[in-house]
């Protein structure tokens, strides 16, 4: 896909909007008439990353589909905080069934639209990481295999947050959850388990797989736009920090997502038909400590009995990602030498 590089306009291409750019070159989120797919008054926690990710992705999908969009939602935070009856925060066509069947329901919606001859209506399915990597995994794999015309978006906050922060197969190693306690020689979640769903999706050879974070809006919107250009099964995995489950300050949400990418712990890339086609290189390389220390779920790695050995293993994971996806380029700078924090 071709991207129009933004000429140097004071904040370049990183901020949400830019008064010096034409309207069509600005992000969807900078538009005063954006859909606001999920409206004010929802009950997401202060500083929730998931609601941001959902609004970013769905507003972009609404623009790409000219408003002809149906969203299918799995059970999870996103569903619970947006629709406590009789209130709803959704300003788009939205459907919720069960925790595990969102991909199957979306397949059905797409089939129904096809039968009705409404080829212009596009279908998005969305779930948290629990609904994606654990409970909805079977349905999702089937949807991928059949190459059904659905964009599936996973908002990954690395655990079952709404039920009280339990471990999911997307919880990273060493992280504390209610079910991975910080006791024993290997505190927190175990190493070597869990599922890397973007790579599993790629193994299905579907047309489009991408990862993104709420820290890079331009990248996220471009990926949604690209996904909407394609028909067939598509998968978008968005990292959405959770102040409640991660034990981070509510104002740090975007900062932490940025650090996840800049450390290499969360590789941001896109792939077509099983092959990686582009990566978002690290701009200011950061050691994993700076990411971990902002989150109480990793507090047991620091403090009175620090575990530099475990931090080193997490750094190894980051380094492996950097090597696997080629995240360091000539433009990357070392934050240690510049003294500039991300």
């Amino acid at each position: 896909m071709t991207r129009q590089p933004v000429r140097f306009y004071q904040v370049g291409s990183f901020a949400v909007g830019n008064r010096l750019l034409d309207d069509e070159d600005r992000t969807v989120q900078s538009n005063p008439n954006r859909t606001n797919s999920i409206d004010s008054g929802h009950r997401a926690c202060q500083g929730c990353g998931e609601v941001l990710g959902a609004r970013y992705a769905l507003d972009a999908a609404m623009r790409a589909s000219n408003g002809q969009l149906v969203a299918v939602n799995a059970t999870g935070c996103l569903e619970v905080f947006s629709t406590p009856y009789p209130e709803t925060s959704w300003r788009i066509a939205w459907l919720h069934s069960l925790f595990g069947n969102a991909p199957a329901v979306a397949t059905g919606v797409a089939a129904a639209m096809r039968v009705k001859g409404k080829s212009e209506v596009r279908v998005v399915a969305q779930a948290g990481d629990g609904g994606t990597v654990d409970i909805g995994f079977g349905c999702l794999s089937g949807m991928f295999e059949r190459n059904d015309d659905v964009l599936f978006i996973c908002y990954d906050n690395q655990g079952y947050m709404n039920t009280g922060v339990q471990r999911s197969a997307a919880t990273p190693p060493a992280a504390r959850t209610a079910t991975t306690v910080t006791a024993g020689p290997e505190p927190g979640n175990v190493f070597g388990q869990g599922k890397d769903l973007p790579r599993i999706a790629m193994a299905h050879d579907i047309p489009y797989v991408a990862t993104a974070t709420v820290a890079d809006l331009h990248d996220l919107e471009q990926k949604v736009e690209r996904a909407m250009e394609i028909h067939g099964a598509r998968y978008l995995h968005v990292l959405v920090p959770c102040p409640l489950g991660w034990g981070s300050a509510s104002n740090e949400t975007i900062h932490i997502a940025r650090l996840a990418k800049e450390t290499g712990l969360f590789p941001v890339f896109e792939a077509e038909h099983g092959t990686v086609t582009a990566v978002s290189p690290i701009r200011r390389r950061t050691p994993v400590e700076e990411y971990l220390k902002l989150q109480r779920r990793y507090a047991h790695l620091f403090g009175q009995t620090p575990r530099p050995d475990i931090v080193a293993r997490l750094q190894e994971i980051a380094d492996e990602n950097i090597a696997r996806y080629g995240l360091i380029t000539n433009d990357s700078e070392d934050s240690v030498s510049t003294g500039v924090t991300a």
Partner: protein
Amino acid sequence: METPFAITLDAGTSRANHTGSWRIERPLYVDRLPPCNNACPAGEDIQGWLYEAESGNYEAAWRKLVEVNPLPAVMGRICFHPCETACNRVQVDDAVGINAVERFLGDLAIEHGWTLPATALDTGKRILVVGAGPAGLSATYHLRRLGHQVRLVDSAEQLGGMMRYGIPAYRLPRATLDAEIARIVDVGVEVVVGHAVRDIEAERRAGKFDAVFLAVGAQIGKRVDIPAGDSSKVIDAVSFLHQVAQGDPPLLGRRVAVYGGGDTALDAARTARRLGATDAVIIYRRNRERMPAHGEELEQALGEGVTMRWLSTVDRFEDGRLVLETMRLGDQGSPEPTGEYEELDADALLLALGQDTDLSLLEGAHDVVVNDGVVEVQPTMMTGEDGVFAGGDAVPADRTATVAVGHGKRAARGIDAYVMGTALESAPKHELATFDTLNTWYYTDAPRTQRPELERIRRQTNFEEVVGGLTEENALFEARRCLSCGNCFECDNCYGVCPDNAVIKLGAGQRYQFDFDFCKGCGICVKECPCGAITMVPERI
């Protein structure tokens, strides 16, 4: 509507749920003081005019600029830009080239013939301004804008003061100076040149002036007693530069020594080089770190072949030979004699040891307090004598043209309050926009655009301007490097990052507003604001 079994309410929007009640802290849009504005001796709103320049709206930028400083093309050349030293961008890559953009705007205004804003209605008050240097011209302009009549008097034949008779043409082309002065005079000023004021009180009475602004500068080169033979040529640098500016340069010979370490010493040495001196040596009693001259000027001088004798004083000058005593720096950094001597061949010695002010015109003004050769003033720039104000090099402050421009503006406001019988009110200063209030992630890396310099070999022999200007494209790029510290530039970040859609975008130029019905007070907008224009304050409960 009929509701299903066990359902008692209709479906409704979540906007009924005012999540603003969760909040314990609320975000607040603020304007912080950018460090450039804070550092500007003339009090320019630098961030403000760069903001206009960024959009290519150069005339609006220039108009904002001349609200404070009527000499942008001049200042864009000779100001030592403390704004750039203070610039927060230094900590990202390199300071914004504010001075270069100012010059670009100033030159553009001259090219297009933009005129200064119209003056206010005539107040009928008459003000005498003595001295037409940067302070006097600035005061004249600001007084005229406030509606007062001004008589501007200078002892020289042309207006400009030290800008004309002190600063060499290779730093400030006279066409530029003439254009900016003419623009001020065109606002409607009674100009009297070639008239030296001998008695300020008599002059004030005779002309029935309501107030006087004294901006006579510091025109007299300080002399020290250096034993010199009859044939030895010793000239003070200020007179030397004055004569050169009048087109009447004295003959110096091939080997010229300059005694002193300030900007005047550098100007004198560089001018001597241009007049044909093969050797121009600056003799200074301290070292480079302790030199009062500006680093940029020194680099340019060295590039033109001027040489330095650090840690030396002139003991005597006889028969074409200077005897220098070597110094060493004591514990306090002050030079101490070592008793060791060396010799240097020289045809002429220029003294650049500082300047004094001629205050003989104040003899009739008994209440003016003169301390250490300069006039004591209050914050309004009024001296001890009622209605007599002073500024520029004649009062205690850094002796730069930019400080003088600032004095002129301040004095104009002080004079206005005095003659109109009003109280001088100044708006409270905003909190400083320090580097830690910024989120520099959002600024792309962009190295500074350097101004081209005349090739060295060319500038050794003529008085062409050394530092060139920026092209339009470069000036625009440079303006866009501004981080807009502490002042919203409508990047939409707060509008985009709010999880609760609780930021309302008011439209271009109108900024934003919080919707406190729904703002949960998470603080993401504060954290992700690039320029530090939002802060969190405790909620009143």
